[in-house]
């Protein structure tokens, strides 16, 4: 099977062609403002390098920051209605109460509270009131809004009210986009609701962007299927991604970590992704990034997404090196993509980390003579500073006492030479395009997060039930059933609740089923 992986970043669009587990070609192209032409350019370039005809490509996987950036920059967002089911509970805080004002204004602040919702044990808070929902639907319709986020209290325990309300709205407002919070998030009402609303406000944009990707792929002559990558390193079909654009958030760091695991053949490791300006460090478990346990903000909005637990510092191949009485300072200022004109070795005037590495004789880039004047002492001390910065990040991300290897990827990988924090460093082939490789190899997942009463069914039965549901979710998302594995099981006893209530999270992952 021939696959193409593409990572559309803010600066570069990277692409790789893979046959089975082999990387045939990898390229970098500039990201274009219209996204599509950059993707077309990257596709042409990588096909040319691979010497394969477009017709040989079976499948294209795309990782994109487009939707994250739309929220961060408050552009191309639709007017959105946020309907919460749970009255009389939760009336004290309306939807979007903790959003930055400019973002709330951008999507119109159309929040509605209605009856419905469940208790933690599945009992009903109040019955759904169809007339009330029809009244809200009339208001939404009158305002000309065509996308609705529906969030019901404890919908991760029972999603029935959200589904019924969705049906009522879909019937009352033909063609309306419906986003159900239970399909996106986990327990934590405000955070899950926030994610659902962000998803809803991206639905118009997702239709446009995903159609643009589709056209770019067609224009390159490729007739295979295409997928988008999610923040947990797994795939969703293009049509599914149209409905759930929010699931692409943070897929960039995830893809590079997954790519690092794949290229190095190591599943338990720390990954250090060094770019031009920043370094992202995270840890791999069973080949997947470990996820953050605390609320993650996107564009100033609190969410509880499945985000990789990545720690970032301002260190990259373009970071400026400044010497003062207080010692040597590396970053966070950086020349970024202007490295090839502004660094000393490239005839520029800025002393960067890349210059230090060349002066130290550990890389051969640009004109070595232009850094010959740097004192060996400065070079040695700067290199020590860089290693110390990397060591601190790696130590932070280490989650077990075992001596895990450190996989170094990204364009700025030349900064690393030798072990970090006494851990072996691996620099796999094609390290510069690890993110596109991560997209190309992405698998398919299903996840469950719910509260079980262990007094009623026992821990083993609860875990088995959750595992079965996770496997079914993976199959529904497009995984081949016989390839599915359970990659993550977490059970946390909940304080103060009777019947040994326990929150169980299970994630199942399988190979993409290509028909």
């Amino acid at each position: 099977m021939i696959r193409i992986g593409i990572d559309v970043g803010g600066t570069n669009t990277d692409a790789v062609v893979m046959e089975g587990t082999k990387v045939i070609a990898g390229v970098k192209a500039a990201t274009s403002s219209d996204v599509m032409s950059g993707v077309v350019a990257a596709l042409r370039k990588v096909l040319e390098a691979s010497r394969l005809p477009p017709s040989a490509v079976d499948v294209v996987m795309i990782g994109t920051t487009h939707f994250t950036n739309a929220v961060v920059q408050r552009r191309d967002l639709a007017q959105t209605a946020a309907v919460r089911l749970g009255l009389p509970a939760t009336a004290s805080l309306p939807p979007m109460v903790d959003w930055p004002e400019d973002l709330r204004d951008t999507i119109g602040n159309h929040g509605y509270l209605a009856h419905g919702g469940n208790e933690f044990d599945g009992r009903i808070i109040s019955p759904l009131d169809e007339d009330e929902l029809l009244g809200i639907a009339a208001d939404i319709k009158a305002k000309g809004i065509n996308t609705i986020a529906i969030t019901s209290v404890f919908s991760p325990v029972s999603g029935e009210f959200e589904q019924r309300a969705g049906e009522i709205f879909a019937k009352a407002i033909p063609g309306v986009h419906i986003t159900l919070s239970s399909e996106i998030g986990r327990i934590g009402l405000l955070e899950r609701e926030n994610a659902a609303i962000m998803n809803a406000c991206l639905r118009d944009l997702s239709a446009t962007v995903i159609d643009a990707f589709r056209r770019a792929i067609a224009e390159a002559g490729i007739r295979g299927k295409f997928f988008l990558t999610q923040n947990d390193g797994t795939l969703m079909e293009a049509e599914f991604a149209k409905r759930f654009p929010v699931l692409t958030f943070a897929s960039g760091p995830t893809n590079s970590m997954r790519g690092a695991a794949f290229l190095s053949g190591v599943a338990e490791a720390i990954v250090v992704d060094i770019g031009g300006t920043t370094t992202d460090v995270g840890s791999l478990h069973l080949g997947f990034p470990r996820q953050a346990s605390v609320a993650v903000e996107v564009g100033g909005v609190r969410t509880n997404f499945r985000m990789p637990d990545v720690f970032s510092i301002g260190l990259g191949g373009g970071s400026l090196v400044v010497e003062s009485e207080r010692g040597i300072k590396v970053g966070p200022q950086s020349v970024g993509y202007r490295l090839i004109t502004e660094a000393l070795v490239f005839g520029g005037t800025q002393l960067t980390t890349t210059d230090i590495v060349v002066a130290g004789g550990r890389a051969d880039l640009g004109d070595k003579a232009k850094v010959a004047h740097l004192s060996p002492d400065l070079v040695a001390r700067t290199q020590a500073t860089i290693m110390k910065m990397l060591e601190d990040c790696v130590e932070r991300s280490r989650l077990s006492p075992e001596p895990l290897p450190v996989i170094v990827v990204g364009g700025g990988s030349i900064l690393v030479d030798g072990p970090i924090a006494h851990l072996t460093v691996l620099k796999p082939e094609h390290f510069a395009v690890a993110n596109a490789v991560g997209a190309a190899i992405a698998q398919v997942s299903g996840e469950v997060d719910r509260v079980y009463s262990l007094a009623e069914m026992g821990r083993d039965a609860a875990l088995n039930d959750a595992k079965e549901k996770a496997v079914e979710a993976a199959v529904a998302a497009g995984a081949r059933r016989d390839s599915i594995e359970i990659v993550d099981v977490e059970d946390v006893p909940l304080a103060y609740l009777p019947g040994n209530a326990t929150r169980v999270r299970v994630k199942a992952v399988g190979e993409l089923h290509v028909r």
Partner: protein
Amino acid sequence: MSDKGYLLTEADLLPLSIGAALLGTGGGGNPYVGMLRTRELLRQGASVRVLPLDALPDDAWVAEVGGIGAPVVGVEKFEEGAECYRAMRAIEEAAGVKVSATISGEIGGSNAMEPVITAAQAGLPIIDGDGMGRAFPEVQMSTFMIYGAKASPSAIADEKGNVVVFKEVIDMYWLETFARGVAVNMGAAAGFAIAPMRMDFIRRTAVPGTVTQALSIGHTVLDARAKRRNVVDQVCATTGAKVFFTGKIVDVRRELIGGFARGRAIIAGVGEWTGSEAQIAIQNENLVLWVDGVPKVMVPDLIINLELDTGEPITTEILHYGQRVAVIGLPAHDLMKTPQALKVVGPKAFGYPELTYAPLAAA
């Protein structure tokens, strides 16, 4: 109304919630939802004055209000808004008194905010003090209960309009049992008001100044972050706390016994403590700290885990392998350390018969 004390402003709410989370000693629930609710009320024009303990006359009545239930439910099914307010009105009616202020039973965690919210709704001030100076898991563990506050009439209210009044309850342990049972039936998130207390009693038994203390801790944390100073050092300097251990969590063992999450965190030392090992016993909150097998800090003194780099307080629910922590100890108020109090909140009361409380000296 007294003009003593000070008005809470919107700018106080974030520092108050940070300080409250820190005084939660790993438990007490997340004050985030409560902070937002308070902010909404202040934006709608409510105002709340924080009164020192000497402001009100002896015969004024004060109501202890707070949320009762499970912290995880509080972030999913949060309040209709007036649960505590209805519970407070119910105890006024049952006791035949009008209250002049609210007070927190537990400054640590989400119950720092609830009395502020009720006060804002009722147009009352709050008293600058609380019943613990920290967080503890059960109703009877407050100084009010320890020093003889009446357990009834108390009331519990849900978001649906149900209000249950406990007309006669013989002691605080029965109150805890009944209230916990009703709270679970109400969906494990409810508002609770305990029998009104007279101001002369509050003056004698409240841990004083803890609202101001939480605010001051929060301001210290925010200020240290803004100026990129070491948050842990600054918190210690402000509060008189001391760092007892610095290290990396190498194991967290948990189990659930009788509805309470018990466990133990094992920490391998770094820096000054390299080669040493610390253990922290947990039951919702941090209970006992041992360093190399020697008990160093124990309840009721405060044991607080701060994330080493950011100074962020770490709750026992999110403690996990690999976190780098500074374990700080802060002496509890003297009211928490009398023989009478230690029977309820000392190490033996939490199931450590082998430990005899040794007070932490103030730094």
